[in-house]
């Protein structure tokens, strides 16, 4: 399994041809108390860069973009039921959706974990 990040503060965990996507610990901390989450339905086709999910804190509303293209296989109903899960376990139980990768080559442009953490430090 490998883990990648985007400059939009999403993480992508790859297991075979399935990608699990969420927002990073840094992102949830910046957003603050999360009160609403909306995730895509299974079967929905997403292309890279498309709006895929919504996350809202007390202070701000944000879209989560699909960092890679593919077909949604599952949205996380746990985070829609309890959005605070994104605060308490952003890079684990607080994932947003899983998709079946169209093109593993799209992963090439993403940051690995160490590079992301280093880049965060430079912000």
């Amino acid at each position, binding site marked *: 399994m490998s883990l990648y990040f985007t400059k*939009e*503060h*999403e993480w992508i965990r790859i297991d075979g041809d399935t990608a699990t996507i969420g*927002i990073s610990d*840094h*992102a949830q901390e*910046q*957003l*603050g*108390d999360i*009160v*609403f989450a*909306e995730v895509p339905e299974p079967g929905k086709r997403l292309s890279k860069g498309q*709006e895929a999910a*919504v*996350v*809202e804190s*007390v*202070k*701000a*509303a*944000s*879209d*989560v*973009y699909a960092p890679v293209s593919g077909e949604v296989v599952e949205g996380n109903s746990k985070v829609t039921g309890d*959005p605070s899960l994104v605060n308490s376990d952003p890079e684990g139980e607080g994932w947003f959706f899983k998709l079946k990768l169209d093109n593993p080559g799209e992963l090439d442009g993403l940051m690995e974990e160490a590079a992301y953490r280093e880049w965060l430090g430079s*912000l």
Partner: protein
Amino acid sequence: MSREVHNGPTDETHARGTPYSGDPAGGTGAPPSLDKLPLDSWHRDRGARMVPFAGYEMPVQYEGIIAEHLWTRENAGLFDVSHMGQLLVHGRGVDSALEKLMPGDFQAALDMKPKYSLLLGEDGGIVDDLMVTRRGEDFYIVVNGATKQGDIAYMERRLPGEVFIDYMKEQALLALQGPRAADVLETILPGANELGFMQGRPFNWRGHNLWASRSGYTGEDGFEISVPAVAAADLANAITASALVKPIGLGARDSLRLEAGLPLYGHDLDDKTTPVMAGLTFAINKRRRIDGGFAGALRILAEIEKGPIERRVGLEVEGRQPVREGALVLDGEGNEVGRITSGGFSPSLQRPIAMGYVAASLAENGTALKLEQRGKLFDARVTPMPFVPHRYHRKGASA
């Protein structure tokens, strides 16, 4: 993750085009030059996240907005509102001079009793909302942070030459709010608990002259305390030494005032809004309604008589998703009939609530409306404000 939409107290600046900088994407545009509060390092030492607001770097949150909000409703929260402008207006005929710009009865104003009032433009629009207190021959006025320079310029232009405005730059302003605020403040400023709601008095604390009034912006019992900036950190330390008190940021200040149904200038009020539209007719004194003679009186008195074309209302939003400032209000046929001026998630009610303006014919409680935000429709219903009952300390009422 991207495309942030922000609102809340930080959008007092958003109305003025300054980016909110608490977001992962970072603000855009040139960094504004920001002033520091007297308690700047006090906030940072306590883990505050600082954001630009009203020209200052201000604490938006410490441990988190919801926790801070609920703490204030249950215990006591200390807010630094030193960005607000504290003015002392004095000189010959100051009371009747102020009556030209505001609709209060300042000639008959009782000593040390703060009154909510409105600085008005000639067309009846609201230039600012403020608190005015007679202190002997002088008037102590607290105005909004983002508008204070404009207010001073406007008042100087309009007041006669023998009336002077002193901007009390050297004063910090703290607010202690919540059901335990009086217990805490009484141990520091003995006598504070004898004040009734909307009553103030001077105190001496460790050799410093303080002014405290029983007032605030949360809907809870509480106090606002004017303190010399040099003593502000000591006073904040003395207050937060109590385990009942936590420092509270601007984020919770905004969600608390929204639940209390209190309008925020620059969002729910502006120079296109009249007091009658805004549901602030109580600030137009009875004698003044008969005599007039204040800026905008013609329009405002006509609106009191005939009713305004639109009104500020509270809205309960179906579902869990917050609907925020800028969303449109639609009637059953999809016609645009108003706009949301403040909205968010209510930590106390655990649901989205909003405030906005709608056509007067749709302002009745219970009216079903639709809200449109980013292409999505929400069901909403006009609901009485406050959303969460006020718990002010009114004398004669049980404590």
